[in-house]
């Protein structure tokens, strides 16, 4: 029994995976029309969320309550930029890609500079850069005349291979890479060490500033790329299109079982968390709940999961003394 509990403790993604299966089963049974086909719609939405959430997860892993609040604006601005620059032709796609990557790079570096060099709390720094980008979005909104997409991007975002959405394939590959990065590489170890105890990490020879900066950079880049793909998928860019991803990216990370205090994250969990969150939203839409209620439920879910998981993290750190562990 304790072995099982320990395994669950180590593989925290299981809970969100169970949640996905349960909710899906309930939906399939109660609403006859919820089938594998409608699941693929959920899969596409969840894939977009997963990409953003992976970046958020890296930032959360760096600990001290670090969170990236600028991703919503990065995502929206990138969507606008890719549409304005690409102007509906594949030939200009590399330029658009450069613009989008540029947005991610500049924002990520700015966040990293503010957090690492100036020691400004991450929430404030990213909140402020987000506001500055929001103004850029307002200006871009005036330029964005048409809604023509680059065909290649459109295929990438909305296409299917053997019925499987391409976006899902992209998301799964990204999750696998992030999982390898966290679990099997030197970088993953360093990231976890910094998240658990930054001072000890610095004294163990880790360049903590670089590690933290890389997480913010990755988060901004992922949000920027997702913005480009999302713009292609929905066929345009609009103000506030990134807004839902602010809370949902955090919700997916937390639901997936990553510790909000940092130091321990799971990419697979973030995938499951994204699916679970999107399923919850879909369920509410099917049930015909108004948008306001959907917001309330999402807020409650995040707080509730945190309230449950927060205690677990505390217990873990205290490492309750076990009688059988007494040394001979």
């Amino acid at each position, binding site marked *: 029994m304790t072995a099982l509990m320990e395994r669950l403790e180590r593989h925290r993604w299981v809970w969100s995976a169970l949640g996905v299966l349960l909710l899906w089963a309930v939906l399939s049974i109660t609403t006859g029309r919820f089938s594998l086909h409608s699941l693929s719609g959920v899969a596409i939405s969840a894939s977009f969320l997963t990409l953003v959430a992976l970046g958020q997860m890296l930032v959360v892993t760096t600990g001290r309550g670090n969170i990236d609040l600028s991703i919503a604006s990065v995502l929206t601005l990138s969507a606008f930029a890719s549409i304005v620059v690409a102007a509906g032709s594949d030939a200009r796609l590399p330029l658009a890609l450069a613009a989008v990557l540029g947005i991610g790079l500049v924002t990520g570096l700015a966040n990293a500079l503010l957090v690492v060099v100036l020691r400004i709390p991450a929430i404030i720094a990213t909140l402020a850069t987000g506001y500055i980008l929001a103004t850029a979005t307002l200006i871009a909104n005036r330029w964005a005349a048409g809604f023509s997409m680059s065909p290649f991007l459109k295929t990438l975002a909305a296409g299917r291979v053997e019925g499987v959405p391409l976006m899902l394939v992209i998301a799964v590959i990204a999750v696998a890479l992030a999982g390898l990065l966290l679990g099997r590489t030197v970088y*993953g170890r360093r990231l976890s060490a910094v998240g658990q105890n930054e001072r000890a990490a610095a004294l*163990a020879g880790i360049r903590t500033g670089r590690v933290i900066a890389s997480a913010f950079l990755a988060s901004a880049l992922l949000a920027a790329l997702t913005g480009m793909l999302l713009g292609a998928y929905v066929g345009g860019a609009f103000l506030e299109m990134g807004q839902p991803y602010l809370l949902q990216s955090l919700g997916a990370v937390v639901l997936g079982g990553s510790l909000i205090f940092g*130091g321990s994250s799971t990419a697979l969990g973030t995938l499951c968390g994204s699916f679970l969150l999107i399923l919850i939203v879909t369920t509410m839409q099917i049930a015909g709940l108004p948008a*306001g209620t959907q917001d309330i439920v999402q807020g409650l879910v995040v707080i509730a999961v945190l309230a449950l998981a927060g*205690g677990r993290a505390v217990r873990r750190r205290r490492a309750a003394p076990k009688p059988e562990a007494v040394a001979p």
Partner: protein
Amino acid sequence: MMTAVFPAAQDAPAASAGVSAPLRRSPPAAGTDPGAPHPPVVRLSGICKAFGPTRANDGIDLVVAPGEVLGLVGGNGAGKSTLMRVLCGVTRADEGSLQIRGVDIAPDLYDTTLAQAGGIRIVHQELSLCDNLSVAENFFLEAPEAARALPGWRRIFRARARAALDEVFPDHGISVDARVAHLQIGQRQMVEIARAVATPQVRLVILDEPTSSLGLERSRQLRAFIKARTREGLAFIFISHKLQEVVDIAHRVLVLRNGRSVWSGPAVEASVEALVQAMGGPTEGVMASRRAARPAIGEGARERVRLSGALIAPLGRDVVLRAGEVVGLAGLEGSGQRDLLHGLYGRPGPGISRAGKASFVSGDRQKEGVFPLWSVLSNIALGRLESRAPLGRVDDGQERDAARAAAEKLKLDPARFDSPILDLSGGNQQKALVARALVGEADTILFDDPTRGVDVAAKEDFYALIGSVARAGRLVIWHSTEDIEFLECDRVLVFSGGRIVRELVGDEITEAAIVDASFAGTGATERDATAGARGPLDRLVDLAPFASLAAVFALMAWVNPLTVSMFGLELLLGPAIALVLVALAQMFVVGGSEIDLGVGAFAGLINVLSATLLFDTPWLGGVALLASVLAYGLIGATIQLRRIPAIVVTLGASFIWLGLGYTLQPTPGGASPEWLSAAFAWTLADVPATLILIAVAAVIALAIDRSPLGVVLRGFGNNAQAMTLGGWSPLRYAIMRYMLASLFALAAGLSLTAINTASDINAGGPFTLISVAAVVMGGCALIGGMISPLGVVAGALTLALVGALLGALGVSTDYNAAVQGCLLLSMLALRALADRREARR
């Protein structure tokens, strides 16, 4: 006899209600002398306490009689701290019984509140003052019963602080209004000691290493004071590494070793040598002989470290440290040993040069050593990753082999590699950290007090290892707080006042020689007269928010002269009242070193509530407003109870507020209740209501901040741990903090309704960032504990004016968000740079 048994009933009326319930009269025990006039102040019997595998206390008895000084000695990790934590109600004993002034106390009911009611006070090694508060305010936190929420309530504590400091440390030179942060470390220790002994009804004061930061004269004053107060019946427990001090001051001595009491008797029967023997610490002879047994360092061993410049000025020559040596860094605590260690590890500063790689092993395992989520193996293996490429693969098998080799040298059982690191005893955790340094193959290993809190056996293993590690070709640099450990070293550098004043080699190294040299240059540390003086520069920084408000206002007046009229003021500043109120709400949350990301949305929700429910069905609206304040309290409780980050919870809550607002009112509309509009539409001597209300809000916030409640809230923002140990409930004050914030946000929402005469759930959203900006501009520290209501009001008004100024200059409102974001960031960046300059000073 009755009065002696239940003294608490008369002496501590405020606390008596809480005390009497768990206390019960003990039957006349066989052990107590029925003829004795006073029962012991405390009697602990058979105290046992285990942390995981470590038996920190194992059947310890302790008795302190009134007017007695009990000396408590023992090496690091002997269990002194745990015993004192049990005595103070911080830690609950696994077994054993407890008697206070002859009254049995049920162990599972005993807590810090009961210990304080019983007249027990402790002066910690880790200082427990809130350094953002004044000396007098810290006295208030210790004994708040006399406080009244009236202006001038500080007077009584100011007088008490002054009297106590004068009594213990004559000519202390400490201003009771000085902020503790502005005091030197020795002065803080003096304040802490004075605070403990000045508490009304105090019967037992525990002094844990009280003289570690005090100069010779202050130590003498303290001993004189202890002697004087014991004559009046006050009891002391005196814990010190300085055994001679213990022998001099104590009536009786209790020696602990590995969690057991090994010797107890009158101090006249104790000598320093006998105490050392009983503590089981290493004796000079054993350690020195181990050094002598090491092979000599080879000729021409490679130079690893060279020290030059101001650091070694008293020696007059460069110090060169070579591979193979064990070098000790000695001196009074805080004399520069740690600075050198960190200088050697990080970027070498002027006068310090190092060749080859270095690794660092700290004795402060929780803060500077362990990674609590990892296994023992991962904790060790981290040492191998230092020079590897980020995308390199980590291999469990290779790690295990490397770690095994290091662990065997340290007698750390490889079978425990897969246990979580925190399941190990302190000694074994420390071994894992040393193993981490060994697998790293560094040329120099820096040890910062590595045997702190480590049991005797683990210490022996460590000592045995040091020599072989060094002679295998590494340079070992070792800072310790136990002078005897330096006898292991080949060479000792003695620090005083930040410089190396003496170099001892080989047989010159004795405890006496180290102590002599440590005190050689201590004239400087005795200087403590410049307490808490605030320079004109500090005052200038305080004025910055008001100066920037004036500057922006002047600019505005220049662009549009109408600004200066009463009409212009109302037009410009009137709408700012909502921002001012939201900023004040945010300020109280920031004071607790948290940030509320939902405060703007909450004000928006109140806006909607008051323009719909409150307008249509006033009683229902009133209930809803009340419920929303309670909901905010619930948020505070959730954050505190579950220890989760406030930002995420308040971010989640912001969606709840928005959702509720949308549900109530999907599109903007509604109407303001008449009385509410009227409340914001009067004038007094031609001054419009909104301007007066802004001033009123500022005064209320200031009054709250200056009240006892405000002081407690700031205390929690600065040092929550010390507040909790002092018996203040973190939960109660977290709830109060958030409810206080919600009241200001509620007022903000109402003002939005009154001024706009309609509601829009999105009206509040932008306030969240601006409120943080206003709080920062107002001079509050985001790390908590430092708030300034008037500054925040000035900051909020400045930001409101900036918006208007942009409008007057013809800049599109699209740029508002960017300008606000840039302003906030530049304020924070400037603050960061200023702090860094101050830190360098």
